């Protein structure tokens, strides 16, 4: 192929032209918003006001000098870690189940339902079943003596977060289930047969064959689910509004309140930068550690 003056063939030039839309898309919808968000975090920008001033690190100082921030960060950590562990464990368990011959397409489709139910519906049903007067969960717990008469688990610190996490696990497990199931389908059956011939039982086969094959998938899932869960706003806001007493308020709720409560876009941007930075650090550390263990 003949090269032009810049040393590129016509195909290479055409290839570069074809990636222009993608690059433009990334610039407009990914790079620009992130850069602008970083910029806003150093300003006193407010919603609906066009003028704003550069305030340096003031927003960051405000965040770190606010004792509530640490409480909300701790809530975010609890919410994220417990939700992700639950999603992955249940997702894997159900994936192993539907990988069996007797699991048909109907069952697999049925198990996807939680993932497609709108958050607002889940929130309403959760509030209904945990209502202190007539909610099936609340009444059950009250009858067992685990909850005060006419009390709701959503009104008790600790149990309100537990309910949120359980609901979130229920809603989100189909995603890891699907990914794990796809990975399980790719494991060569002959490996299990060979292990069986060598006398390995089911547990040994699971830990020696299945688990190592799922490692890369798990790394990806952990990263994705952590990012999605740590930034997930709908369910906690709709179910508890961050209560009782701020025990389920996490950083996305804090960002929402800064944006649309006090209209401090600059402050909201800085909280989102802090959250994003923490996630980034965690993910880099986690992926590097996982890959080095593998190496």
């Amino acid at each position, binding site marked *: 192929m003949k090269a032009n003056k810049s040393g590129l063939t016509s195909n290479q*030039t055409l290839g570069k032209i074809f990636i222009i*839309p993608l690059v433009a898309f990334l610039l407009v919808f990914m790079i620009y918003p992130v850069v602008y968000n970083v910029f806003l975090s150093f300003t006193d920008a407010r919603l609906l006001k*066009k003028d704003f001033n550069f305030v340096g690190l003031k927003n960051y100082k405000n965040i770190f000098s606010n004792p509530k921030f640490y409480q909300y960060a701790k809530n975010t950590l609890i919410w994220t870690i417990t939700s992700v562990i639950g999603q992955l464990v249940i997702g894997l368990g159900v994936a192993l189940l539907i990988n069996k011959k007797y699991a048909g397409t109907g069952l697999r489709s049925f198990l996807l339902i939680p993932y497609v139910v709108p958050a607002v519906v889940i929130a309403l049903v959760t509030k209904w079943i945990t209502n202190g007067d007539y909610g099936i969960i609340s009444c059950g717990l009250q009858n067992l003596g685990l909850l005060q008469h006419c009390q709701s688990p959503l009104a008790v610190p600790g149990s309100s977060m537990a309910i949120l996490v359980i609901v979130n696990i229920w809603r989100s497990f189909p995603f890891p289930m699907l990914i794990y199931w796809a990975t399980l389908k790719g494991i060569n059956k002959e490996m299990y047969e060979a292990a069986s011939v060598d006398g390995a039982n089911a547990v040994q086969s699971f830990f020696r064959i299945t688990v190592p094959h799922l490692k890369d998938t798990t790394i990806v899932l952990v990263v994705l689910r952590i990012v999605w869960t740590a930034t997930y706003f709908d369910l906690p806001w709709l179910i508890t*509004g961050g209560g009782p007493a701020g025990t389920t308020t996490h950083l996305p709720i804090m960002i929402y309140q800064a944006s649309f409560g006090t209209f401090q876009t600059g402050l909201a941007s800085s909280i989102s930068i802090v959250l994003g930075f923490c996630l980034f650090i965690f993910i880099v550390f986690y992926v590097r550690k996982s890959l080095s263990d593998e190496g």
Partner: protein
Amino acid sequence: MKKGIFILLLILVMGSLVFAGGKGEKAVDASATEKIIIWTNLTADAQAKVLNKQFTEVAAEMGVEVEMVTISFNDMYTKLATAVESGNVPDIMHTNFAGSAYLQSQGIIIDMDDVIDGIGRDDFISSYLHVLNADGKTWGVPDWALHTSVWYRKDLFKQYNIEIPQNWAEFEAVAKKLTLDTNRDGKVDIYGFPVPMHAVQVAPQTYYEFLYSAGVTTFDPKTGEYSFGKQKREAKEVMDYMINLYKTTSPPAAIEWSWNEYRNALVEGTVAMTLDMGAVIGLAQSNNPEMVEKLGCFDLPGRYGVKPASFGSGYAFVVSKQGSDKKQAIKKEFVSRLYTSERAAERALSRPMFAFPSLYSALEIYKLSPLVALFQEQIATITDAFENNNWYWYGMENGLSQMSSQIEATTFFGEALQSVALGRETSEKAVDYIDRQLQEQLLLIE
């Protein structure tokens, strides 16, 4: 050939980018017909239908085009931000008093005194106009308002020979007397009075009803100075009273109760009284019709009898600054035409709770409607409170204030109250926390 393909691709890419990222500013309409865009935060079917019908009628009368856009209140600020950025602010907005306050503080809307004078200032209930007042001007035309009252079980009051309480001590005694174990199984079957404290809006609404009835305000109603900080002792006493009610007469789950929960509880008969703006009647009509005739209402008494003020809010029409003088005149005329007595009454009646029109003449029509014929007693009670007492929406004691929308959209009141109810915080510290938060908001507003 290759050069041609290159240029063609470049044009396509640039063209798609322009279309995707363009500001979308509308071309100037060359035709003579003006188009008016109206945003309303009322998204319920019955209300939206009546609004749409009236807007269409007025547009036909004036020979203009109209487009009504329903936007839930939660989405309003984001959509408005986008509209401001693109220079496409709606011409007229139908929003609540807090939304009006925010729009006024941002300099987006114009004052409506001339429109109000044109309709007839004397026909407006004066307290409605007071709420929309700032800097000596009225920034919206009030449409209707809601008033918080105590809705109660008349049958239980009669059964236990209870009179309407006249002060807080009596109110507490009634609430305790009506906390009943009817089947004697050692468990409460009917709670006297729930204290709902859901962090989003409900907690501050409950607290402010008690604060106002004890004379505590965010701002001095006369001078507009920040006054909560000077009344912290009283605010603490109010909080102690509320929390005591919660502990003795309220279901424990009420700490996370929102509107639906406490309304349902009254309609289903598990509480004997509750604060509400009248939606319990609509709920009873649809869910438990037998309860309708058992429900009555009275104004929450003042702490020592005389009540300084109570809690209420409503909706207004506001007009944006955007557009030529001619367009402003059209917009104002449009709003003005919406204020025939019949139209004002029809809008208030489309609300599934007791929404009282802002015009006296409309109120007379409202009272005669078969929709509220059964509730003349309740209407008389609420009308009296509207006409003869002070009532405010939180933070708007001295007229429009952006503080109102900041209280509405944040949860610090809820967090503080819930913390005290759960014994995690003292009421003194909780009031200090609220005071600090309010002062921070004040700095932001200023």
